């Protein structure tokens, strides 16, 4: 007994007319035409190359923003400081219902923002009496005392100014924090903090994790990106600087972030990724999914594609 013909799965193999086809000529012509097209587009439009932001550039352009960010790194309230896995245990990370893959994987790129972004870089500076004593006081203080110092400094930091090359905060109850933040700002403005975070006790390096996390904790990077129409609400990372197409193929990924419930959910990233993985699986397995695999036959777009064939 013959198997039933399924239109969305089976075909009637072609036994009709053949036409001449020179595959090598087609390939060579395609290569020639697309090479000319690529050359033309490259000559006319070029490509964007906006210089990267360094901590030196940021701290010179917006010293108060830098200093405020440094304080948040010191008390762990920055985005990185309160991130959770894979950087630290400050939060549980995003989840979908009971599924929390972030927590399951755990902390794999450990970052203690106070130590890594503030204390260690300052400790590497050449000897300065005030700073040396300040770091010693910090090291010998209890967690509670440190918290009081940073809280007192943070409370007064709304009046923070940058005057004569110094970060000034009107408080006398913040222990060594004013000296530390001021010296870290000076270190950043000289470019030494970039080197300190990048080098990580090694001459050669290609890992910019710490520097990028520190920079992205401030508002300077985001403000600059917003001016370049790169914010999340502006379809974010699928764009690039200037009027270039960017990663237009990520439109669907960016789209979900623009609509509810994703644009209001605290688990938006996990939800969007789960959805995109599901949609990707649908795409790959569409030949086996009844309904989805029937759409081409039912919409009859194929008649437009094979117009010449159906005409004849």
């Amino acid at each position, binding site marked *: 007994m013959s198997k039933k013909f399924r239109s969305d799965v089976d075909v009637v193999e*072609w036994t009709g007319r053949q*036409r001449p086809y020179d595959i090598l000529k087609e390939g060579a012509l395609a290569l020639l035409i697309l090479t000319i097209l690529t050359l033309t587009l490259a000559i006319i439009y070029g490509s964007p190359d906006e210089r990267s932001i360094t901590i030196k550039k940021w701290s010179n352009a917006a010293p108060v923003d830098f200093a405020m960010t440094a304080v948040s790194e010191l008390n762990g309230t920055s985005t990185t400081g309160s991130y959770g896995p894979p950087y630290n245990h400050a939060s549980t990370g995003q989840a979908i219902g009971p599924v929390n893959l972030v927590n399951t994987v755990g902390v794999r790129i450990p970052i203690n923002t106070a130590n890594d972004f503030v204390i260690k870089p300052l400790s590497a500076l050449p000897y300065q009496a005030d700073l040396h004593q300040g770091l010693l006081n910090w090291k010998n203080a209890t967690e509670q005392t440190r918290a009081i110092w940073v809280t007192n400094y943070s409370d007064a930091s709304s009046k923070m100014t940058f005057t004569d090359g110094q970060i000034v905060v009107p408080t006398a109850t913040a222990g060594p924090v004013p000296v530390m933040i001021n010296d870290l700002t000076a270190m950043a403005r000289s470019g030494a903090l970039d080197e300190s975070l990048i080098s990580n006790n090694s001459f050669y390096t290609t890992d910019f994790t710490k520097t990028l996390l520190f920079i992205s904790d401030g508002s300077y990077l985001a403000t600059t990106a917003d001016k370049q129409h790169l914010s999340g609400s502006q379809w974010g990372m699928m764009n690039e600087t200037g009027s270039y197409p960017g990663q237009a193929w990520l439109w669907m990924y960016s789209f979900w972030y623009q609509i509810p419930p994703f644009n209001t959910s605290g688990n938006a990233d996990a939800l969007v990724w789960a959805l995109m993985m599901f949609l990707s699986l649908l795409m790959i397995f569409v030949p086996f999914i009844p309904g989805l695999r029937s759409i081409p036959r039912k919409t009859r777009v194929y008649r437009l*594609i094979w117009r010449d064939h159906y005409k004849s």
Partner: protein
Amino acid sequence: MSSVEIDRQWTTRLRKRVEGKLPPEKVLPDTQPSYVSSWIYVFGVATLTSFTLVLLTGCALALRGPQWWHESNYGHFVNSLHLWSVEIFFFSMVIHLWGKYFMAAWRGGRQLTWMTGGITFLVSIAAGFTGYVSQSNFDSQWISTQAKDGINATGAGAYFNVLNLGQMLMWHIVLLPLVAVLLTTVHVVMVRIKGVVPPFADDTEVA
């Protein structure tokens, strides 16, 4: 050595299998079924050709290292060629993909051809993304710091650290192109073995 013994060799068996599945007239055909006459087929060829250009321009960029193109006008031009070949590649591939969907190109035992194409599309997205975060400029800073949250949310960020330039560059210039080339080869070989999917038989049959 007997002929039976030779026939049992792995090499002999593989050669016979390849010869049976993919004879020379299928590898380099000089005729096509008459229905292979539509603009949609151009985009399959364009995808393959622009992918070749992506690889060539990427190799040209690699000759002088990752920083070169920031400091040299010639390097910047090569980067522009790489960028636009990538844009053409994705443009062609997306139209190719949608075209094949509306042709139900998986019919007639071509499911694996469809699936390898779909996976190649996803691998290409990953390759494109790692390229964007390896540029070592403002775009790569912004894109990587934004994208880390999505990848971290899956747990993969612990191993696939988009803020690690060295790791991303290696994925971009070695691992993902290797996978993409392998998948593309398998995809094209499958197309050559099975041929281009025929149209739906006719309106009465497909109804």
